[in-house]
């Protein structure tokens, strides 16, 4: 026994490399195609061709069946689509209903881009990974590389390979078949004798890299789980602390210590001129002193100051602002203005106040049905108080807002606001019309008994 052992150790020579198949080399793609067809017709299926450029028809010549990859990708794409739809339906329709500009919950047209992206994402990953998997890649070595002639496959030679695992493989008959198509060389492909294990260095190196990659994550976890008294760490110090002043800060540059500068006496800023024009205000600033002396000083400065004034205690909300309102519309009551007012009213006001002004717009109805106490019912424009208000005050309500109602100055020009006031007046009058308001020709037939009916229409 010992003798035998000794013997085998001493004579351990590298065993002869195993043969893996035959590799034929051709000068051009026509010869290759011709050879491939012959090999295919002989029934071999474990074959492959290597060419410096894509050769049309090679798949057919080799008898390669169309890949099933497209179907796998189709399934992945559909999975992505369903995932996206399910996710959005769950998130926005069930789990966390979030109102985004009044859009419906769940799946909406806005879900399509995300669904599209996920479909593409799933498909793209599947086609790359599926392609690798179907090709048995990545592979760190391939026996075909053992032949130095094979290097020219990326340059100017065409190769046809028949693998020994083919079920009809027979060393001699394959050699005969291939030499019958006159290759410029025919070699047996030998097993790759180089060691197949990963070199130690690479293994260690990648292990270290993985560990190093965990460090940032560990630091983040540690910081989240611990407390610290140290001040915040500023990565970009000069961005966090810029040499500039913000409103309401103090400064040493100016004597009064204010960083916000008051208007220089005798100058007019852009847009300020309109502050003296009743057309833009709804009241006459020159007459404020006659109504409310102390207010005069503020009003002559800027209109915005008015907003900061508290209404006198005890007054009722609507008429508290005691100002010299314009009583007469500064725009003409013609058809164009009425039309403009109607369009703008229906665009901007009807949602809350309703088309007829009763405060029963869609938003108001929906808010009422939700019954949340944060909602203030829009005032009916036919309420006594609003009826009695001078036109200037309604203009002011639109321009500056009133109570819970916001300002519409940014969406409507003064001209449009006045037209709305005109239209509101028309609405009010239409609800409280007297027989004298009806043209004489149309009065007949409008008896007192019918009046309430026509009112309600």
């Amino acid at each position, binding site marked *: 026994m010992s003798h035998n052992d000794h013997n085998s150790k001493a004579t351990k020579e590298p065993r002869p490399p195993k043969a893996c198949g035959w590799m034929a080399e051709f000068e051009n793609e026509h010869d290759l195609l011709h050879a491939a067809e012959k090999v295919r017709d002989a029934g071999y299926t474990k074959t492959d061709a290597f060419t410096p450029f*894509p050769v*049309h*028809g090679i*798949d*057919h010549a080799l008898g*390669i069946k*169309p*890949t099933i*990859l*497209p179907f796998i990708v*189709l399934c992945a794409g559909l999975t992505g689509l369903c995932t996206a739809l399910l996710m959005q339906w769950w998130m926005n329709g069930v789990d966390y209903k979030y109102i985004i*500009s*009044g*859009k419906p919950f769940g799946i*909406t*047209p*806005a879900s*399509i*881009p995300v669904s599209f992206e996920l479909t593409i994402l799933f498909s793209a990953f599947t086609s790359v990974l599926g392609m690798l998997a179907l090709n048995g890649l990545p592979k760190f070595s391939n026996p075909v590389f053992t032949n130095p002639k094979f290097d020219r496959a990326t340059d100017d030679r065409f190769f046809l390979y028949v693998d020994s695992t083919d079920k009809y493989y027979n060393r001699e008959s394959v050699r005969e078949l291939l030499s019958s198509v006159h290759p410029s060389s025919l070699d047996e492909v030998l097993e790759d004798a180089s060691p197949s294990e990963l070199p130690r260095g690479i293994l260690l190196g990648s292990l270290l890299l993985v560990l190093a990659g965990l460090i940032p994550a560990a630091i983040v976890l540690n910081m989240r789980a611990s407390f610290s008294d140290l001040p915040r760490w500023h990565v970009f110090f000069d961005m966090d602390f810029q040499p500039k002043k913000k409103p309401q800060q103090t400064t040493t540059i100016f004597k009064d210590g204010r960083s916000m500068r008051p208007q220089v006496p005798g100058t007019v800023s852009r847009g300020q001129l309109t502050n003296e024009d009743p057309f833009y205000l709804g009241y006459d600033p020159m007459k404020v002193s006659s109504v409310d002396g102390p207010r005069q000083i503020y009003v002559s400065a800027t209109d915005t100051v008015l907003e900061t004034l508290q209404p006198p205690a005890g007054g009722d909300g609507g008429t508290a602002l005691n100002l010299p309102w314009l009583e007469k519309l500064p725009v003409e009551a013609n058809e164009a203005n009425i*039309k403009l007012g109607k369009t703008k009213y229906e*665009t901007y006001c009807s949602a809350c106040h309703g088309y007829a002004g009763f405060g029963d717009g869609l938003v108001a109805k929906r808010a009422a049905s939700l019954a949340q106490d944060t909602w203030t019912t829009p005032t009916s424009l036919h309420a006594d108080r609003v009826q009695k208000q001078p036109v200037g005050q309604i203009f002011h309500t639109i321009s500056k807002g009133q109570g819970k109602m916001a300002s519409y100055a940014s969406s409507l020009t003064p001209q449009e606001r006045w037209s709305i006031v005109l239209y509101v007046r028309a609405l009010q009058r239409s609800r409280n019309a007297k027989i004298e308001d009806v043209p004489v020709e149309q009065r007949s037939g409008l008896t007192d008994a019918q009046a309430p009916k026509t009112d309600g229409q």
Partner: protein
Amino acid sequence: MTSKYDLETIELPAKWKASTLFTLGLILVFIGAVLGIFMKGQGSGESAEFKHLIHSYLANFMFIMTIALGALFFILIQFVSRAGWSTSIRRIAELLMWTIPFLAVLFVPILVAVWSGRSVPYEWNAPEQVHSSVVKAKIDIGYLTKEWFTIRSVLYFGLWTAMAWFFYGHSRKQDESGDVEHSLARQKWAGPCIMIFALSVSFAAFDWVMSIDADWYSTIFGVYVFAAGMMAFFATMILISMALQNAGKVRAFISVEHFHDMGKFMFGFIMFWSYIAFSQLLLYWYGNIPEETYWFAVRLKDGWQYLAYALIPLHFAIPFLGTISRHVRRHRLGLTFWAAWAIVVHWLDMTFLVMPNAGPANFIALVGHFIGGAGMFAIFLSLFLVRAAKAPLVPMKDPRLPEALTYANPLL
């Protein structure tokens, strides 16, 4: 071997008569118009019948016009990309493109309607009836006036005819001399022409179709019309090539590979149309501003909603799934079926763009509209035949022809 590329196979089949097809088209258009007149119209101002007829004509005109423009664009793309594969099918596209001067004549009825002061199909043409300040502004700066509208329309046709003439002319001259210079000249100008094409088609779409509803605007509208036209163009190409081969022509020149590629293009533009149509919809849906959404609102009531919703499966989902497989695109019958499908849905699409502005959907009038559309398509094909009677169906001396004849798609 000589018989394979026989010169006889690159002529139109003797039985294909332009005059017969043209007469048939005229008869169909006439029947369609009569049905349109017999609809029970409601509406004020312009008579509802006339309103329907002129809208119907415009929709059917756009239906064929976009196909011819698709042909022009296809030619431009072939030269900008120096494509070889398409050489053997290119002449058919060239002939389709060369119908543009004829189509200019078919546009005349629209101009007549505008110059006779009608407020249909273009409401802006009667400024006193316009209430919208947006439209008024467009009239006031002089953009939407009959003079400028006419000048622009003439300009579009002028540019397209000039481009078509240049590309067709060089192609025909090459038929004689085989000189490669003709290819080089076209390659040189294809790039600039594409820019002119993009702008002119976009503006033509704005002027002719979008301005029906001049209040509304969509900057992507031109692309939408373009995408629709490209899809229909490839469908038309497929049908014509199939028909020619069935009549025994160009069999050696157009292979399954070419059909496969035209099918791919058609598939691609089905997708592109959907992408553009949806992009347009999504922004308006999200913004939800009355003056922007009403264009869709008009198309989602009075019976038009069935058409609008039907376009989603008919113009996108079904043909998308139908043509996604290469096996279908390489199958003669399969491809023919989907090409015919694409042409019909393109007609539906143009109807969707134009007809809702003519009032509520009316069944009889729509049947008339459809027959008229079939008639216009027949007229369009007869114009193609007029052109094709004078030229071989394959550019035999094009230096890139051999490339097209040996062309093959890689097997996936």
